């Protein structure tokens, strides 16, 4: 970011609360990137809201200094939808995990992509339920035997968030790695700026229950192609990639965001009542 004095610094968007996260958790970087992005956008903290569900990653709101809402497991997107529709002038971010967003919250994910309300959804994908101490999430590979709940592995193909997001109509799709917070901040800036529903998948390792994810840092590579606006083409790309192409926007759509008409006529409650009058 530029050297000139900014109106806000990243730390202006941080609260004093000490995260409950394990040392080394990828989510620290995400918190940093979000605060950097907000500083870059110079948004007054009171005009930003961060909404989340439940999970380690869903703890983000309270660690920021903006308005936060920490709801129940899997329901962050509808809360954010209601908030943004009722208060279109706010900048609304949603943060959460792969379990919160793609397991219990899968239906809202589908319909949020489809509805295309102007908000940015940042999913910290660690391919595990961290908060409940290490069970397989939808993005976990079928042969991971680290969970007591599925000691032989789940045997189920992983959920592909970006492909499903695209198929459902997300208007902006990117994948980033928590090992590159500066790039992540830039992509979040873009995501927030892009109208409609923006989806940012963050590869954010869980050092405690998936220690092998420390390797991600070395596996990830910057995606070679630039984004496309053609959904069918993006779909083919995403369906054939291995999940480690990061650092770039992968799809940008042009659909106008959903914003119901607040057709403020000169109507009054009295007029509504008149219709019942005999």
């Amino acid at each position, binding site marked *: 970011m530029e050297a000139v004095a900014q109106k806000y610094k990243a730390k202006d968007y941080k609260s004093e*609360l000490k995260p409950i996260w394990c040392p080394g958790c990828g989510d620290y970087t995400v918190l940093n990137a979000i605060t950097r992005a907000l500083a870059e956008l110079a948004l*007054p*903290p*009171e*005009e930003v*809201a961060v*909404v989340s569900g439940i999970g380690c990653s869903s703890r983000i*709101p*309270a660690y920021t*200094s*903006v*308005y*936060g*809402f*920490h*709801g*129940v497991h*899997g*329901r962050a997107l*509808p*809360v*954010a*939808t*209601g*908030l*943004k*529709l*009722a*208060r279109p*002038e*706010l900048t609304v971010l949603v943060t959460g995990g792969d379990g919160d967003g793609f397991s219990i919250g899968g*239906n*809202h994910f*589908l*319909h949020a992509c489809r509805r295309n309300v102007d908000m940015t959804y940042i999913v910290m994908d660690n391919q595990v339920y961290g908060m409940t101490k290490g069970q397989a999430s939808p993005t976990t590979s079928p042969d991971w035997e680290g969970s007591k709940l599925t000691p032989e592995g789940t045997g189920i193909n992983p959920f592909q968030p970006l492909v499903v997001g695209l198929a459902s109509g997300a208007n902006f799709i990117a994948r980033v790695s928590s090992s590159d917070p500066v790039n992540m901040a830039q992509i979040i800036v873009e995501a927030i700026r892009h109208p409609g529903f923006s989806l940012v998948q963050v590869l954010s390792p869980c050092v405690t229950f998936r220690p092998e994810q420390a390797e991600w840092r070395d596996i990830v590579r910057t995606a070679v192609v630039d984004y496309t606006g053609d959904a069918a083409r993006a779909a083919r790309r995403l369906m054939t990639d291995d999940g480690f192409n990061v650092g770039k926007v992968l799809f940008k759509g042009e659909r106008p965001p959903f914003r*119901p*008409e*607040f*057709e*403020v*006529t000169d*109507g*009054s*409650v009295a*007029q*509504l*009542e008149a219709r*019942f*009058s*005999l």
Partner: protein
Amino acid sequence: MTVHSVSLVIAGSGGAGVVTAGSLLLEAAANAGWYAMMSRSSGPQIRGGEAAAMLRFATEPVMSHDDSFNLLMAIDWENIGRFSAEIPMVADSLIVGDPAHGDAPAALLNGKPRQAALAMTDIAGRIENGRPNMVALGAIAALIGLPPEAMQAVVEKNLKRKGQAAIAASMAAFHAGVEAAADLPPIPRLPAISAAAAPRWSITGNEAAGLGVIRGGVRFVAAYPITPATEVLEWLAPSLAKVGGTLVQAEDELASINQIIGASYGGVPAMTATSGPGLSLMIESLGLAVAAEVPLVVVNVMRVGPSTGIATKSEQSDLNIAVYGLHGDAPHIVVAANSVADCLFTSQWAVHLAEAMQVPTIVLTDQAMGQSRAIIPRPAELAFIGQRETAKQAVEGERYKRYAVTASGVSPMAIPGTPGLTHTADGLEHNEFGTPSSQASDHLAQMDKRSRKLSQFNYGDHWADIEDFGSGADDAPQEVPLGDTAIITWGSSTGPAREALQRFSDAGGKARLISIRLIAPVQPERMAAALKGIRRAVIVEQSHSGQFYRMLRAFYDLPAETVSLHQGGPLAFGPARILEQLNQWSA
């Protein structure tokens, strides 16, 4: 013979236009200066199939259906027997059928009603574009004393777009029916009333609930359709648009409840409407609204349970889930409307309560009142506007406490956009700042606060409708009741209870009605006052297990002699059954 009320059913299959005929009659009744109520019943088919419109007309506002019907006008008989339990016909009753369609089904004849024939098809056939249902309406009008002018006005209004010829044809059929009725045996008639009577509305309970929340200030609604609540939402969609609000269709009830949580957190009063299965899905997030202290209103239009149950029929069996359904100790508000007209008052009041106390509020209505249309006196203006205590200004050097422990239990809420008061609202247990805490002391402080704000609020007299019946009864209930007997009831059972009490007092009895509107939090002191001097009570409700009775037992001291009258849906209590209990005591 003129009476206070006349009850009749128009029934027929598919295209017979039963419901249209009923609606015309309802409107005409209003023109005649009467009051009226119409409910509907239909077969399992999605569209078409048999239908029955049950109407009651009276010279005073109609609160309930009668125990039986004076008249059944059957356009045809197909599957009409299926309604027999819902339309009791007694010896005095008259069944009129069209000979072209054969005989009345046996199921309708158990009460040995009188029978008569009206050749509706024939008569209509003789008039160009004449329809049997208009002939039926003519006969009905003649039988019950409805002035033809009253119908003329309605037909003109409703068929205006179809042109003069259509109006003429309809009225010709109508008048042919009036004439043909001369050959029919009489049924009770209502006296005509001056058309200059008090101003009146025609409204359903579902529309009234929608209007109520708009009056209360709701401007964001999330919707997922479900019978019999859909009309609340369908009425709201275009209406909200007219007053600067919006309705969004959600993907399911989990989404709709969370959308309104989001909107309300954003400072816009919000609501949704649903029925049992949908309410079940909202339970977890209602708890979130309790813990995070987000005001909202859910109108739950009850239908027959359990599970999918009977979607199109009424029962008062969602009391338990509404009051006790949330996990943990989760104080919230439950209010119940007790008539079509009261859907307006109660839902408006609900917005007021929810906003004032930052708490989710469930409004219970039911299919019987939600989908019934009534002619009611024009409702009063109400002062209940949602008014949330907000924090507007940061205090220098003080960190904002979203969940400040206050004497009232209500903590001023900062709305996003307010500088200096950013915070995170949380469904996790938290301290005053909203920071998650697992300390017993924080849990206790917040639990106390969340229940205190409900217990200390002044609900005024609205917690219940208390009415004394019997000579000497005044408008306002007396300090000491006239008799030593009370009916305690709620919701849709209030109408029949009121009517039973009216009959009881007409026969010289004295008793008190207590119809509880504020179901939770309970009001033991107010109830104790209302029960002062009462030795005997009968608890009336439409639930198989007596949910209301059990709830009263749990929280109130009831008179030593208390009888629980409960029955599952869909059949409502007739006034007679309640009266029987009262009479038993006075015998």
